[in-house]
């Protein structure tokens, strides 16, 4: 694609995830109380990788689930199209657990706000911590990530895309400048 | 206004006298003075009013022998005056109106009332049809003789069937005394019970209760047998099924005095018009299948069907803008009949003279009224038709008080340009244009 710039290649992505896995285990003093929830859809794949990495560091496998934030979005009335709902799958209790919420890109913070509402509707966790692979700034709500793969200053017109092997065939993060369409 | 009226330059179609060629017509003192070669009356007609009918047809005044004028009792839907005006706008010089008014026309007083209103309207002539039974209740014969003296031309309980076969027999016998036809609305009440459209795949799909063709055919067969038994004069109203047409055809072959009628909507629309729960496609008998439309057209072609009549049934918008189950049956038809029927000539190979016959001498014979011909000395009822006129029908511009029609906004070809009753122009397309301009 024209103008596309790779800001993280597959090795950088893998290194970032490894580091984040270590940070999670360290900050939470082990993995026993953890629950990893990915925000659809790329968050789900990141969760699978993090779980494997955490298992390599600490042994054991924390439970994982997927959160669909469609029903919690604040912009549903505005769009003419009704977004498809794939559903939330968290088939275990999260009360008193440390929930690690995982998403690919943190931007305005509205997705995370919706995800927090979804998580609170599922139970009362001990804590909710946020993992993002990329933080591109321009927050519109007071949301911050606890674990960041890479801080990426961007302008509003640019578009940031995380591509993952599991669904895009390749691991990288690319920035595309504003559309001239 | 002159006592004399000359219609010149047109093609006269007078099936009663076997004429179908370029002729001029001279009317004097309300009667047909003469029909002659083009230009024949130039001298004689000095000072007469002239109607130029170049490229148009000149026919005996068209007759619609099945309309509902709703007065007395339902004036919010139509009155004798508005109905007669709508008839004239549709090219009809005479209509016969049914007895299902309120009170029912089952006695001389109501008959006289209707005739009175018609005289005041000064549009198309109105010939009342009296009830067969008191109150249309199907139990006791109405005072047919009294009504005959007051001016009815036939009897019918139309709107409802005469369910009691014994009563129908007596009616056919008794009407012979007055040489009148019994006009039958054929519907077996138990087979038709609660039905709102033709019974078939469409009614099944739409979840609406259906009226099977058998509901009509069983009664047609019954009444033909009764006509044979009584030697009475039977006229079957608004045929809607192929089976009915065939029964009538057989009866005629056997030489029985049975005549039959079809409506323009049954000659053009099928049950599919109900799609979307369109209440302007709800009427009784209901719209049926393609094969029925084909059979009715064939019936018109071979004159098994003697008469075409509209069954003009005005209803108020509050009676039609409701759920399909609850909506009243019927549509108006006086102002759309002619352009629709003219299409049969091209589309269905109906001969011109056959079509005009079904609207003139056909109904005149059934009702026994001195109309439907351009013979010398006949009443000066004439319709001038432009078969090529292109126009658009808007229900809101019609003369009828009601708007319940499935043909609203249809592009039409062909229309009456001048309607003349007893030598007087009661409607002309030019005045219409001036009015709406």
């Amino acid at each position, binding site marked *: 694609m024209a103008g596309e710039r790779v800001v993280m290649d597959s090795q950088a992505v893998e290194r970032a995830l490894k580091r984040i896995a270590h940070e999670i285990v360290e900050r939470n003093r082990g993995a026993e109380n953890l629950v990893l929830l990915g925000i659809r859809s790329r968050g789900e794949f990141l969760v699978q990788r993090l779980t494997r990495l955490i298992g390599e560091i600490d042994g054991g496998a924390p439970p994982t689930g997927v959160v669909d934030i469609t*029903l919690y979005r604040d912009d549903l009335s505005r769009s003419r199209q009704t977004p498809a709902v794939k559903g939330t799958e968290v088939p275990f209790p999260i009360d008193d657990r440390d929930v690690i919420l995982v998403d690919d890109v943190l931007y305005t913070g509205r997705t995370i706000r919706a995800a927090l509402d979804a998580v609170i509707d599922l139970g009362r966790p001990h804590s909710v911590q946020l993992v993002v692979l990329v933080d591109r700034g321009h927050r519109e709500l007071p949301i911050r990530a606890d674990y960041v793969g890479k801080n990426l200053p961007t302008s509003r017109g640019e578009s940031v895309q995380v591509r993952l092997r599991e669904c895009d065939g390749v691991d990288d993060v690319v920035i595309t400048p504003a559309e001239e369409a | 206004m002159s006592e004399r009226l000359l219609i010149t330059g047109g093609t006269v179609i007078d099936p009663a006298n076997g004429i179908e060629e370029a002729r001029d017509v001279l009317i004097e003192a309300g009667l047909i003075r003469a029909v002659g070669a083009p230009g024949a009356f130039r001298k004689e007609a000095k000072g007469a009013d002239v109607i130029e009918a170049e490229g148009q047809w000149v026919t005996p005044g068209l007759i619609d022998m099945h309309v509902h004028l709703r007065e007395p009792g339902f004036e919010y839907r139509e009155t004798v005056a508005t109905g007669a005006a709508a008839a004239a706008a549709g090219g009809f010089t005479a209509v016969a109106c049914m007895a299902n008014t309120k009170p029912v026309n089952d006695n001389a007083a109501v008959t006289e009332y209707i005739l009175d209103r018609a005289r005041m309207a000064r549009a198309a002539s109105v010939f009342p049809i009296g009830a067969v039974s008191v109150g249309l209740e199907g139990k006791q014969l109405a005072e047919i003789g009294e009504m005959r003296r007051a001016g009815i031309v036939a009897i019918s309980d139309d709107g409802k069937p005469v369910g009691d076969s014994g009563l129908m027999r007596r009616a056919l016998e008794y009407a012979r005394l007055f040489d009148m036809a019994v006009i039958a609305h054929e519907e077996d009440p138990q087979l038709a019970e609660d039905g709102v459209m033709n019974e078939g795949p469409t009614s099944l799909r739409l979840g*609406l209760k259906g009226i099977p063709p058998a509901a009509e055919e069983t009664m047609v067969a019954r009444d033909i047998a009764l006509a044979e038994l009584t030697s009475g004069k039977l006229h079957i109203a608004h045929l809607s099924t192929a089976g009915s047409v065939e029964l009538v055809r057989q009866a005629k072959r056997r030489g029985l005095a049975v005549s039959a009628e079809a409506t323009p909507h049954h000659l*053009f629309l099928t049950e599919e018009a109900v*799609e979307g729960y369109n209440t302007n496609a709800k009427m009784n008998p209901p719209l049926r299948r393609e094969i029925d439309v084909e059979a009715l057209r064939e019936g018109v072609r071979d004159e098994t069907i003697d008469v075409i009549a509209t069954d003009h049934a005005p209803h108020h918008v509050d009676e039609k803008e409701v759920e399909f189950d609850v909506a009243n049956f019927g549509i108006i038809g006086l102002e759309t009949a002619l352009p629709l029927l003219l299409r049969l000539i091209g589309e269905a190979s109906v001969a011109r003279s056959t079509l005009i016959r079904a609207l003139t001498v056909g109904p005149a014979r059934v009702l026994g009224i001195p109309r439907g011909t351009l013979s010398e000395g006949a009443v000066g009822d004439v319709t001038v038709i432009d078969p090529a006129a292109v126009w658009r029908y808007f229900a809101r511009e019609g003369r009828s008080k009601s708007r319940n029609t499935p043909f609203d906004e*249809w592009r039409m070809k062909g229309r009456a340009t001048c309607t003349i009753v007893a030598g007087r122009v009661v409607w002309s397309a030019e005045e219409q244009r001036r009015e709406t301009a």
Partner: protein
Amino acid sequence: MEYRGQHLLGLEGVPAEELEFLLDTAASFKEISDRDIKKVPTLRGKTVVSLFYEASTRTRASFEIAAKRMSADFISLSSSNSSATKGETLLDTARNLAAMRPDAIILRHSSSGAPHFLAQRVPCAIINAGDGSHEHPTQALLDLLTIRERKRQVGGLTVAIVGDILHSRVARSNLIALRTLGAHVRLVGPPTLVPSEFGRWGEICHDLGQGVRDADVVMMLRIQRERMNGNFFPSLDEYSTYFCLTRAALREAKKDVIILHPGPMNRGIEIASDVADSEAAVILDQVTNGVAVRMAVLYLLVNRSRADVDANTPVEVVHAPPVRQRRRQAAV
């Protein structure tokens, strides 16, 4: 994929992909009813009005629960407490309601076509909760969802629908949707209740044993006592002798057959008690799925852009079945 209709008036004309999409969406809503806090904020501040001209406890309750779990405000009107008893027409009632700007009206009415009538005249989304003998789309959707859960997919299944097909809107919606999804449908009942005209939609069977032979799914319909007065059958006893689903009759079906019933059941008349309580009967699943289906329908229809409702224009009926114009009719 999306559901393109602005209303849910029926399943006729809804293509297979949209049906599957409706079912997928409904499936994703199921887990909400398993949570401790059974609510999502999606329809917060939206108003849903249910207008029921026919008595119904379960369908109305199901819609109400669905709406409330989506955080919508739900108003319930039934014919006894509505102005219909004062002689107000359906149109006037609907117009009055519409002036209060609801986001959706759920209508159950005894006249076929009543929801279509409203949809042409009122600017909000209309959901058909059953119109006369015409359709009951949410019932069919929940039936399909239940079948799909147990049987993986609907296409290729043999489904027997037994009972008063003629008067049943549940039967109609189901057979339309089942055919769209590629199931083989058998319609079973006496000739008075399963007229031959239905032959174009399914295989007609007047014998119960033959009807359920090798069936994967058997759907029983309620027999209404009023039908006896219309002479559709002489007595309930005689009807049940020939058409009651008993264990014996069920032996003809496949070993893993499932049995559905829209409820409420007439035990001993159309279905034997032991069959109704057996493992094969998935009636309670149907009820659970009913709430999920109705949540999905509300989600998909109520979230239209407010602009449509504000413009006060009647919204298009997208899934009207194709009108085959007669060549001659040429209406312009």
